[in-house]
């Protein structure tokens, strides 16, 4: 098991390492002089711009810039933001709990809603229940996050007045989590349905039924449990989707997480903050997939040894 974990961690590190290269190159992919673009809204003299260029190391060749960047990274230094001149690592860590709360709540919603819907659709395959559930799933998959968000906002906050539009307390978590969760529930519903249909056709389910076990026991203990295995393995990927979706949803609901921070950073052309965000995001997603892989391997011994 230890060797398996070590392998997964190593793979995650490679992912993060690739992200560090991408992040260093990023600043040079944008057309125009990055220093000038970053400070486009400030009154700056050519001397000040040169000073900034030196301070950010942008006057050095790219490979030097990269080593410089790695060196600082090793000390946990992600640089300072252009806007407000704050340590990037601090800004990201302050905002991350809000994003984590949002994505985890959404994950729960996605799992509960998506799996129930998919299971029901598979169980009632070919009926109107199946058709209805899959139509909902297609709508959910195709609807952009911000649009679903605005619709939910209109219904639950404006028309019904049940929930606040925006704010910082737990009540204002419900709408963004629902938006993000429902959109991802659609994906999970489709996956669960096809996984369960496969399972329902398997011999062991038929055998269980044939030996006279109650239907509930067959469905729960035999069918659902086996069906869960491939779905659980997808949760890591789901988490990555949710993190991506959070960028848009946080903006719609003024939820103060790292996703919204990323949008603000892009609009302000705050390169150190954008770079920090990308690296942070890559790290979180890589670590999440390690956790899922390990949990999965723990649940299913076949994985560990293959």
């Amino acid at each position, binding site marked *: 098991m230890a060797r398996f974990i070590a392998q997964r961690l190593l793979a995650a590190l490679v992912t993060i390492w690739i992200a560090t290269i991408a992040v260093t190159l990023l600043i040079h992919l944008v057309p*125009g*002089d990055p220093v*000038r*673009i*970053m400070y*486009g*809204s*400030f*009154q700056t003299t*050519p001397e000040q711009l040169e000073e900034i260029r030196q301070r950010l190391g942008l006057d050095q060749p790219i490979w030097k810039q990269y080593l410089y960047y790695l060196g600082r990274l090793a000390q946990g230094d992600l640089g300072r933001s252009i*806007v*407000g*001149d*704050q340590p990037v690592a601090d*800004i990201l860590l*302050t*905002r991350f709990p809000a994003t984590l709360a949002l994505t985890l709540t959404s994950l729960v919603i996605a799992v509960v809603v998506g799996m129930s819907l998919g299971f029901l659709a598979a169980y009632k395959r070919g009926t109107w229940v199946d058709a209805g559930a899959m139509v909902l799933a297609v709508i959910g998959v195709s609807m952009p996050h*911000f649009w679903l968000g*605005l619709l939910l*906002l*209109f219904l639950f*906050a*404006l028309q019904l*007045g049940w929930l*606040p*539009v*925006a*704010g*910082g307390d737990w009540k204002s978590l419900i709408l963004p989590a629902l938006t993000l969760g429902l959109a991802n529930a659609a994906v999970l519903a489709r996956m669960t349905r096809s996984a369960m249909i496969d399972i329902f056709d398997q011999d062991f389910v038929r055998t269980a039924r044939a030996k006279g076990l109650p239907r509930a026991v067959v469905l729960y203990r035999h069918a659902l449990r086996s069906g869960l295995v491939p779905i659980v393995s997808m949760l890591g990927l789901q988490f990555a989707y949710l993190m991506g979706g959070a960028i848009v949803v946080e*903006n*719609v*609901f*003024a939820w*103060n997480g790292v996703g*919204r*921070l990323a*949008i*603000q950073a892009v*609009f*302000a*052309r705050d390169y150190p903050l954008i770079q920090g965000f990308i690296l942070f995001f890559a790290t979180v997603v890589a670590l999440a997939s390690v956790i899922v892989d390990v949990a999965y391997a723990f649940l299913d011994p076949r994985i560990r040894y293959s």
Partner: protein
Amino acid sequence: MRTTRKRILGPALVAATLASGHGVAAQELVWARYGDADSLDPHRATSTLSMQVWDQIYDTLLAFDMEGTPGPNMATSWEVSEDGLEYTFALADGILCHDGTPFDANDVKFTIDRAFGDNPSLTRTSWGPITGVEVLDPLSVKVTMSSKFGAFLPFLADSFSSMVCDTNTADTFGSSTAIGTGPFSLVEWVKGDQIVLAKNPEFTNLGDPVDNPGAPYIDTLIIRTVPEPQTRLAALRTGEVHIAEPPFDDVPAIQQSGDLDIIVAENTGQDVFWEFTVSRPPFDDIRARQAVAYGTDPQMAIDIIYSGLTNREWCPVARGVFGNDQEFCEQYGYPYDPDKAMELLAEMGYGPDNPLETTMFVWTGGNRHKLAEIFQAQLAQVGINAAIEIMDIGTMNARVKEQNESPDDPSPGTFDMMTWSWYDPDILYQLWHSPGAYSGFQNAELDAMLEETRTTIEPGARLEKVQAVIKYLMENAVHVGLYSPGWEWVFAVRPEVEGFKIGPFLHPIFTDVKIEG
């Protein structure tokens, strides 16, 4: 025992609830904006979003009236020496900083020294060529300049010159602490989310253009960041937010339904204008610049896109700024005249089979892409093929400068819908005096004229100098005014909010605000 306590507590709670329903409730006003302040340190940011918060926390030595003219405020009077190099200010007595320490000449010295210190203010050059600040006595302070600076007094009314109390020595200044003398004091700043301000009970209004002579009526002002316009509108409708910028396309519907008040800021100093890459063809030729000016009809375009919410602006300095005079500017302006535009283009050798090719830069937001399309169609009619490139304002600033600095670029020169907001015609100096903000149009003649707008102090004489520059910029089609205001100037306000005023240069004032009911 437990039950008894509950019984005792019960009526008390009911009484407390009843009392709060009788008009003694703390009044809390929520103002939502699309973005957050960058810093609460007036020397560390330049955005309007930041300045609007500084206005609440700090006060200034002078203050603008609604027309944008500076007058006494924390400085009750001032004297300028014969040579125009020394300003002596008399400060009002009894002003207190939020931490209870008295505000005096030492705080003025602290602020100015700080602006010129090791980590100088981002707007240091706007203070003028200050060489020294001297505390004469607690209530008088003398500022010395190395040369005359006509924009000094207006600067002292602008939020960039916010007076910072000398007790702001902590490292946290600007991010989690900020001590000023303004109408509100800082309670908490949750970055990216909200800034919570509490009423400063000691506040005395010495020069702001509002009726309330003292402390604000509301107890708490919450400045919240809500980036999505539709979300702001929804929050306005549910009452979570009292004041916010509405989505543009919804303004007519809001006005019709009347469920929210629409308030439009005036004298914002925001000027939207044409300017050109003059370092290479075609706009190195004045006729090409004039053809664009004659070939576009800003009035028609803003009528269609903004339906009466903004105004045609003829001047290079917008309404509210010293030197702005529509009649004066219009005589050097370019009224819509497609024939004249075609004539000028024909002189240059362009014609129906040989249109002038160029690219128009426009910055994102505020439905400006639609405006640009109207201009594009108008220009097509006179024989100018203008491609449109839309980018954010910071990128546009950098790209415009790059364009001017690339005289050998083989592609045709560009032109752009640019914008600036400033409280003084000194903006013209910053834009067009060499080397210039964009390395654009510049020459020795214009430089000399611009220098005179700085070294002339007496308002009457300075006006002449400023108008000479305006005339020059317009006749040479360097800086052609289009409209004003240009951005984030429309506010939707809930009906129970009374007394909300927007001072000049887009600075909302909350000391008159009351929440009814």
